[in-house]
């Protein structure tokens, strides 16, 4: 069993006719993901990739095709609206790949989610993949292998690195979840860790973090109280200059919180085995999980 998605997950794509929408819909279809519909305003009635029907609204797509999940690949200026439309249509799982959503919009989306039935992953994330079963997002499927390690990461590219090092070491993955690098996200580490802890297929967990905010410190707290499965961790940004914005709006070091050192210390205190450098992740993973 994987977490949140499997071979039966029916997927809607919002922004299916854009450049990224078309490309990633194709890649997901190639992987075997059940993409049942797309939404692009004013293009309802057309189809893409030969067989996928396009609707003008999410409500219409839901009434006709009953998706369990939505992948959002619309431009930043319409992404907030697309997320709210998916929440309004009561889609259980929404994955927003789009980056650069205004942060105040995300605070309003977070509040809306509290009163909804939707789990939002992202925004600004690479999505989710259950190797061998289903992929929703932009994770390069070639590097994935079905297995028993759960991966959760704020950074997309670093998650790809971790997955590849796992696969090269012969360790497959149960599910990989990119939660996104923004200061405010729909899903944080604890929700994913809880799902991995309860998933029989997942035997071990890899947690990738980066400087800024206190998400990793809170994850460490959650791990200490709730997680029994072994975890390997990695934090990027030891040498980031203070106060500079390192790409992700979230990765701002302020004062003494949010530094790589404080995150590593918190995770180690919760029993997480830390890899210090990018190229060590594979070794630490093998030492921890191949027993």
């Amino acid at each position, binding site marked *: 069993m994987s977490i949140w998605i499997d071979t039966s997950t029916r997927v809607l794509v919002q922004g299916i006719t854009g450049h990224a929408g078309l490309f990633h819909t194709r890649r997901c279809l190639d992987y075997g993901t059940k993409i049942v519909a797309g939404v692009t305003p004013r293009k309802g009635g057309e189809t893409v990739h030969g067989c996928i029907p396009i609707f003008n609204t999410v409500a219409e797509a839901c009434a006709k095709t009953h998706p369990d999940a939505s992948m959002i690949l619309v431009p930043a200026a319409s992404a907030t609206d697309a997320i709210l439309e998916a929440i309004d249509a009561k889609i259980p799982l929404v994955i927003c790949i789009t980056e650069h959503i205004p942060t105040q919009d995300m605070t309003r989306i977070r509040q809306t989610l509290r009163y909804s039935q939707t789990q939002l992953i992202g925004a600004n994330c690479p999505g989710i993949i259950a190797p061998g079963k289903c992929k929703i997002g932009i994770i390069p499927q070639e590097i994935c292998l079905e297995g028993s390690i759960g991966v959760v990461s704020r950074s*997309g590219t670093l998650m790809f690195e971790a997955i590849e090092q796992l696969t090269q070491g012969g360790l497959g993955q149960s599910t990989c979840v990119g939660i996104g690098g923004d200061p405010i996200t729909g899903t944080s580490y604890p929700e994913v860790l809880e799902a991995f802890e309860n998933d029989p297929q997942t035997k071990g967990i890899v947690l990738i973090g980066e400087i800024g905010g206190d998400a990793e410190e809170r994850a460490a707290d959650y791990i200490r109280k709730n997680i029994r499965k072994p975890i390997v961790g990695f934090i990027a940004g030891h040498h980031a200059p203070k106060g500079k914005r390192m790409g992700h709006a979230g990765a701002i070091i302020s004062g003494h919180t949010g530094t790589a050192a404080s995150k590593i210390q918190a995770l180690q205190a919760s029993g997480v085995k830390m890899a210090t450098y990018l190229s060590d992740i594979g070794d630490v993973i093998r030492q921890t999980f191949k027993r």
Partner: protein
Amino acid sequence: MNLHEYQAKELLQSFHLPIPLGVCLEDNKASTLQQALQVFKHHAKVAVKAQIHAGGRGKGCLKENGLPGVQLVPLAQVPEAVASMFQKTLVTKQTGPEGKRIHKVYLMECVAVQQEFYCSILLDRTQQLPILVASPQGGCDIEEHPEYILTIPIDSLLGLQTFQARRIAEWFQLKEAAFSECITFLLHLYHAFVACDASMIEINPLVLTKDQHLLPLNAKIQLDDNARFRHPEWDKLEDLHEKDPQELKAASLQLHNYIALDGNIACLSNGAGLCMATIDLMHHLGGKIANFLDIGDSASEEQIEAALHLIFNHSYVKGVFINLFGGTLACDQVAKKLLQVLPNVSRVVPVVVRFKGNRAQEGKSLLDQKQNHLPIFVMEDTEQAIKTLLQKT
């Protein structure tokens, strides 16, 4: 994007907040100054304030003459104080030793102050909501008196409520008219925060004047760059002097995640996480990064080309590391651009390339065919790649 004090105050004024009388001087011409002095002709003293994007100006020091970045002077001495600042370099604890050059000077009325408060609205990552932070001990070092700091989370769907603003007015122990003034002030301030897509508004100090009115003596506003698409008016607020020239050039090429550092090896990646992890490993292996350039995972051909030109054109760059893990970005597209750009750069330096993910194999094949006459080295492993690059430089 950061605003200057004078811009922040103009913005607050447009949301019906009271501000002190003030004039911003954009140049040091006699006519400009004369006009400005007219505004203050009934004031005995004027505050002359350097406009830079950094705090600690009052305690800061001008490199050229040792004077502070905020000077309270009699009206007659304003021209002298203004002259002491224009085009000078101000060093404060936030600017670093190199300091910041002053291109604008703000003149402000001096107000008789009874008490100084602190208040700010910012986004709290832990609660994932805007928060209002207030302290009756305004001025410097408010964080040294945590027992005075009151923090109120704001429901982003409902906005700041009157009872919340009232709690702050109580916390400040204000009386009568000033009490109501404070509530109105905070409600307007929150309105400004939302309407401007600010990520932070800080009023320090917010003062109670001797005649019992509230006035923001200083204001700092940070705007959320992600919201720029719905704020065309921000273009004219940007102060180009405040940016690193290389970062500015990168931004003009639509490369918004470029940061200049002080090493000699340029690093180009397609994700912030990978870029940071590469810098960490580079430091560990004894190298120093010249810049951080995250081109993102959906860079266009033009952006890739611009990125390559940008990193090769620095005379201090001795080597280049291209470390990509393509999700949407096609590695062969970058390879093609690299083969086009490299023969045309002014100084050819060794380039180590590591391609993973989307079309990595195609990218590597392209480079393998051509690399014999260009110093391009294709590597599989990040650590090996960095070691190779350090040997070649």
